[in-house]
C-alpha cells in the first residue's frame, strides 16, 4: 500500500477553487470521510446504525448544500472576483455539465439516501426528512439549474 503511486496530471482549469477536485484520490477520500463520520456518530450517540446513517445523511445534506450550492465566489482574493456570482457547483470544470465528477457527486447523496432509508426500515419521520434532503440536493445538481436562482433566493443585486 505504501508503494502504490498515482499520476497527477495538472488539468486545464485555471480556477484554483475547483481544480483540486480533478486530482486522483478525491472520490476515495470523500467516501472514507462519510464512512468514518458514520462510525463517529455511532460511537458518540450510541444509537442504532439506521439512526446514525440518517444523521450522517442529513448533516451531509446541510454541509454540501451550504458549500456547493449556497456559498459563492472563491476563498482567495487573487481571482479578483470573477467567480463572485457562481456557486462552487457552477464553477467546477468551467461550467461544463454532465462530466464524471458531477455525475459522481450526484450519485453520492442518492446512495446515502438508499442506505439511510434501508437501515431505518423506511419508517417515518426519518423517511420524510431523508427524502426531502435528497430531493433538494439532486434537483440543485440538474444541468437545467445552472445559474438559476429560484424566487431570487441567493441572487445578487
Amino acid at each position, binding site marked *: *500500500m505504501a508503494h502504490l503511486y498515482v499520476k497527477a496530471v495538472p488539468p*486545464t*482549469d485555471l480556477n484554483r477553487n475547483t481544480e*483540486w477536485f480533478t486530482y*486522483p*484520490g478525491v472520490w476515495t*477520500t470523500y467516501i472514507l470521510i462519510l464512512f468514518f463520520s458514520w462510525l463517529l456518530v455511532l460511537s458518540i450517540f450510541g444509537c442504532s446504525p439506521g439512526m446514525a446513517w440518517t444523521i450522517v445523511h442529513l448533516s451531509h445534506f446541510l454541509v454540501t448544500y451550504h458549500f456547493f450550492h449556497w456559498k459563492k465566489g472563491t476563498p482567495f482574493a487573487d481571482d479578483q472576483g470573477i467567480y463572485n456570482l457562481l456557486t462552487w457547483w457552477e464553477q467546477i470544470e468551467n461550467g461544463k455539465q454532465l462530466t464524471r465528477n458531477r455525475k459522481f457527486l450526484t450519485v453520492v447523496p442518492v446512495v446515502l439516501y438508499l442506505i439511510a432509508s434501508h437501515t431505518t426500515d423506511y419508517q417515518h419521520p426519518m423517511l420524510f426528512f431523508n427524502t426531502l434532503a435528497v430531493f433538494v440536493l439532486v434537483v440543485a445538481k440538474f444541468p437545467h439549474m445552472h445559474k438559476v436562482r429560484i424566487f431570487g433566493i441567493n441572487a445578487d443585486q
Partner: protein
Amino acid sequence: MIAVPYLTALTTYFSYGLLFVFGQIRDLFRKIPGCCRSTNLQGYAPICFGNEDFYTRRLYLRIQDCFERPISSAPDAWFDVVERYSNDNNKTLKRTTKITKCLNLGSYNYLGFAASDEYCTPRVIESLKKFSPSNCSARADGGTTTLHNELEKSIANFIRKPAAIVFGMGYVTNSAILPVLIGKGGLIISDSLNHNSIVNGARGSGATIRVFLHNTPSHLEEVLREQIVEGQPRTHRPWKKIIVIVEGIYSMEGELCKLPEIIAISKKYKAYTYLDEAHSIGAVGKTGRGVCELLGVDPADVDILMGTFTKSFGSCGGYIAGSQELIQYLKYTCPAHLYATSISPPAAEQIISAIKVILGEDGSTRGAKKLAQIRENSNFFRSELQKMGFEVLGDHDSPVMPIMLYNPAKIPAFSRGCLEQNVAVVTVAFPATPLLLARARICISASHSKEDLIKGLEVISQVGDLVGIKYFPAEPNKPQLDEKTVKLD
C-alpha cells in the same frame, strides 16, 4: 508527470478538509458575537467581499513564519536571516535584532551575480555616480540614456534577435505587453501552468483565452485545430491573431518546455509564439542563451522572446526581443514604455556588465566557469536528492528543483526544521501550486561550492527523515569503483 503515493493523497485531502472545517468553525464563532457589535463606518464598502480572505486568515496565517522572512544581507550563497517571534500564534510577527547566517537555497541567483561581483560592482557604482539612481522620467520623455540604448543593443545581440526593448519591471513586461500585442477578436493559447503575470496580461488584453495541458504538444494541436475551426465565439468569424504562450523553465516544476514540438505545431497552424524565458535566460544553454540554445531551436523561429533580468543577471527589469518592426511598434504603443519610469541606470549597467562577463568579453573565463558550475551543481544536487529517495521534479540541467511535500503539515515542519539547522529553503503551497502538490523549491546557484551543497544535502536528508518525505525507495550506496568510472566521463 508527478507520481503521488496514494495514501499520501488521501491524507493530504483529509488534512486540508480538517483545516477547512476548523477555519469555518472559527469563522462561525467570529460572526456570532460580531452581529451584535455594530460598526460605526456607515456607507463604506467592505475591504474584503464575501469570504475571499478565508484562505489568508485561516490557513496562511497559521504558518506565516515560513514565508516572507526578512534578510539583512545580499542574497549570496550564504546570507543573514533576521529572526522573528510571535506572541499571538503567528497572527503578527515581530522582528528581533538577531540574525543567523544561513545557506541560501531559495534565491534565483543562478549565476551568482546577486552579491558583489569583481567586474560588475565597480562599474555599477561608477554609473550610479555618473547617471543617478533613477531617471525620474518615462522612456518617451527624458528617461532614455546612452546606457538604455547600449543595454537594448547588448541584450538583442545576446539573444540573437534583431532588436530588443527593456522595461523597469519583469512582471509588468508580461502584463503590459500582451494587451498591446493582441486584443478582442484574438486568441491566446497558454500553458496551464503559466505564471500569474502572463495570466494577468492575457485577461487584460480582452482576447479569448484557451488553456492547453501543461507541456503536452498533442493537446496544443487539438486545441488549435478546434479553435481555428470554430472561430471567434458566437460570430464564428476567423480569429484575427493567435498567440501561443509558453515558458522556458516553469518555475514551480523545474521542467523545460518541449519547445521544438510546440514551435513546429505553431508554424503548421500559423500561430505566433511567445516564449517567456524568465528563469532560463542566462542559466541554461552552453553559452547561457537560454532554452532555445539548449534545445537547438533557432531564435528566429520564435516570434517574441521575453525574459527578465532578475534571475541570472542580478538586476531588475524585463525585456522583449523580436523583429525591428515589432520593437518599433512596441515603442510607440506600450504603456510601460511611454508612461512608466525607465529602468534605473545602475541596474542597466549591472545587466550590461553581467552580459559581458557571461560572454567572456571582460577578458576572463569567469562566465564560462559560472555556466559550467551551475550545470554541474544542479545535476549533482538533483541526482543526490533522488538517490536519497526524495521526489524531485525538473529536467536534467535545470537549476530549479522542487521537492514534493504534499501534506500541509509538512510545509512548516520542513521549513522550520531546515531553518533551525541554518539552511533557508522556500516552500510553496496552495494556491500558488495545486492543492495536493505542495513543495519545497530549491534554486541552485553558481556561487554554491561543493561543500555548501553537501551541507545542504545533509540537512535536507535529516529533516526529510524527520518529516517523512522520502516517498521513493532510496538507492543503495554504490561501491567506490562505480563512482570513479562515472567521474572519468
